[in-house]
Every structure is written in C-alpha cells, then in structure tokens.
C-alpha cells in the first residue's frame, strides 16, 4: 500500500510538473458589485478616463485626449510604479468604456532560467479591460472585466509571472476598486 501511495504521489508530481509547463492561455477576471445608488451617480464617479482617483491604489493620474478613443492615461501607484493605458472604446449611453495597458514600469527584476526577467507592476501581458455601469432602478450594478495573459510569454514561467500571480493581482485590483467605488457612491 505504501508503495502504491508513493507511486501515486510521484505520478501526481509528474502531472503537476507537466501542467505548469504550458503555453500561455488568456486569462479572464470578472468582478461585479451592486451599489445602492443610481447608475448616473456611479457613472459620474468613474466616467472621466483621465481620473482614476476613485481607486484606492492609484495615487495620481495624468492623461491626454479626454474621453476620446485613443486617449491615454498614466496611473501612478503609491509606491511609484506606473501603468500607461489607452482608451479603446467609450460609450456614454451605455455607461461603459474599454481600455488597454500599453506600458508598465518594472516592479522587480528576477533571474529565471539564467535570464534576467523584469516583472511588471501588474504581472500580466496584453491586458485589456471593460468597465460598465448598469442601471437597476434606484440601485446599480457595476461590471469590471479583464482579459490578459500571464507576464511570462515563454514556456515554463517563474512563480512571479505565472497565471496564478496574474489572476491574483488582477482580481485584487478589480475588487479593491469596486469596493471603494461602492463606498464613494453610497456616501
């Protein structure tokens, strides 16, 4: 019996090793929150692409181009890290916009497989997101969704740049933002 168990765990280990050694598959994050405030009020807080002060992690936002497609914004975190984003779609009537990360500063540099790798502030690649406010009478529902790849684009990612790291970081950003948005709108 002991032998079988050992064999099984070796086998399991083997499969786990294979499973983590794969090609990038696009990941998805979806967060939703119900806010006890009318949609117009919620939208008025987030509608300016050039102002992300509603998100507690963002220390400062500078932007160019207003709310027109192609506009850009640079988000600065409290620790000084930056993310540059481009507005891809803006729909006032639907209270929705979509944007994409075009550049990021490096959070840290690690050595993986003998090569120096720069881990970006948000450990993702090819990140795009959509935020939308839905009216539900006196209340509203905000959907914030993102599609992205892990930061490491080659085979066999380091832990800092794998799917788990990407998903955890993105989910945290969306969650923190929505919780604060709710607090601001319900004030």
């Amino acid at each position: 019996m002991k032998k079988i168990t050992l064999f099984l765990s070796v086998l399991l280990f083997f499969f786990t090793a294979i499973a983590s050694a794969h090609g990038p598959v696009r990941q998805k994050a979806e967060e939703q929150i119900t806010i006890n405030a009318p949609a117009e009020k919620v939208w008025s807080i987030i509608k300016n692409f050039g102002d992300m002060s509603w998100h507690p992690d963002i220390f400062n936002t500078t932007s160019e181009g207003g709310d027109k497609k192609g506009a850009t914004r640079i988000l600065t975190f409290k620790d000084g890290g930056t993310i540059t984003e481009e507005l891809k779609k803006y729909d006032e009537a639907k209270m929705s916009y979509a944007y994409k990360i075009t550049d990021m500063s490096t959070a840290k540099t690690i050595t993986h497989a003998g090569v120096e790798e720069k881990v970006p502030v948000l450990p993702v690649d090819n990140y795009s997101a959509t935020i939308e406010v839905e009216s539900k009478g006196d209340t509203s529902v905000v959907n914030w969704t993102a599609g992205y790849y892990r930061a490491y684009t080659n085979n066999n990612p380091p832990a800092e740049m794998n799917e788990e790291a990407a998903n955890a970081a993105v989910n945290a950003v969306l969650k923190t933002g929505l919780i604060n948005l709710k607090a601001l709108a319900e004030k």
Partner: protein
Amino acid sequence: MKRKVVAIAVATAFFSLPLAAAPFAYITNQLDDSISIIDAKQGKVVDTIAVHGKPAGVAVAPAGDKVYISTPEAKGLAVLDTKKREVIAKVSVSDGALGIAVSADGERIYVADWYNNNVDIIDADSLKVIKTIAVGESPSGLVVSPDDRWLYVANRLSDSVSKIDLNTMSIDKVTIVGSHPFGLTIDDMGERLYIANVQSDDVTVLETRSMQPIATIKVNTQPYASALALNDTRLFVTNQDDSSVSVIDTTTLKEIGLIEVGNKPEGINTHPDDRHVYVANWFDSTVSVIDAKTMQVIDTIKTGKGSRAFGQFFSK
C-alpha cells in the same frame, strides 16, 4: 429475414439523417476544457465534450468524421470522433501546439508549435509525425491550398508568412507582412491569402503564386482571424479589442462594414451555406451568427468559457 434487413436499413438511414442534414460547428472552450458542438440548424449547442489541455485550435476533417483539436497545455492534439462524440486519440506533438489544419484529402494534419518555431506534419491514419519543418518565430495560423500543394504559416513574432512546398516538404518562400500576423484565410482558387495582423491592425492580402502583397487593408483593433463568404466576395475579420467584425469587399479591397459582436471575438468560420458567418466571442462565451448578405447579427449562441475556435470549425 429480408424484412428485418430492410427495417435495419431504414433505421440506419433514419438515424444517419440528422448527422447529414445539419452542419455542426465545433467550438473550443479554452477555459472550460471542452468543445461545444453547435447544431447550425437548431442554432444551439447540442453536446459538450470534455477535452483536456486548454483546447484552442480546431480543424474538421473534410469527411466530417473527425475533428482535430490542438491542446497547448497537453502539448499536442486530441482527435474527436464526431459520430461517437468522444475523444478517441491524443497525440503528443510539441510544447506549444496552437494552429492546426487538415489537408483537403484528409490524409495529413498540420500543427504549428508556438514555442519551438516549427510545423509538424502528421499522418492522419497512424497519427505519427512524418516531418517537422522549421519556420519563423511563434507560428500561429495555418492554411492549406485547396489542391494540397502548399501550406502557409503565419509567423507571429517574425512578422512573416512562410510558404511550404508539400511535395518536397520544405520552405518555398517567406514574405514579410504586417505586424504579428495570426489567422490565415485562403480563397477557393488558392490564389489569394488574407492575413490578419494583430499588432498593425490590418489585413495583408497576398497573391499566393508570387507571394507578393496586393494590398494592406486597415481594420479595427487587434484583428485575429478571418473568413470568406458569398462566393469569396466578402471577407469577415474579427477585431479582438473592438468587439466587432470588419467586412471587406474583396473586389475593391475596402472595408464596407463594421458589425458589433460579442466581447473578444476570435475564431471565425463560414457555414457551408456560404452565407452565415460564425464568430466565437472569447470573453462572452458565445458565438455570434452573422448574415453575410445583410451584415447583421441574426443569432447569439451560448457556448462554454473562453470560446476560441481558432481554425476551420465547421463540418461540411
């Protein structure tokens, strides 16, 4: 006895009718590890098959009896039997199997390896690799000429398309196209190749014989793949980051329409009726059905999580 034989024959004819009558679309759901089988006539998913390894690419055998599915996380491909509706074989190929195509005669399967920068030629009967051909960096989309003579490969990171001579199994020509070419589509005559360039937001049109570009057509953000319809007169291109499909008139080589579909449209393929174009919306886990004539979405079908369907996903 005779009566029994007749009865069986009738029964067989009856049971095989639904299979023959309705074409099926095989949609890979990458995040669900499954394939949705859409009955195009009913406009709904009639079966969901578990396929391990983050299924991405798809190629339906010309006879419609098998579907080849690339499974990047399982480092290979899965063979789906369409009658049994189950996976009957798994083939280990490479580190990053993605693009997949099948020859017009059904005898060979082609798989692009994203990491190892090569294309495997696989015998469809024995499921053994016959030959591995080195191509450009991160090969993605694959398409075979209708006469089975040439294989075209989009090399995403090399910004090029390789033309492989399938008689000699060697590279014939390499042409630089737009930035990050991904999906490839060839016309019925095998004369033109349409290449969706993800990063330059355009489509390169190549004349296949000379491998010279005829035109570069601007589309919307992050075009992924394309499909021809209405006797090759219109090309439909999925714009991943715009939730839309661009329509190009293949005579004037101009964009003549933009159709709103679901979020992150990726795989696209035309129904055998040559009129309806099916688009897999990765983010929404749906398939949009477009009427190529009116350029309207006429149906949206719920599939599985992360519908990608990169390749020829329709049975004839």
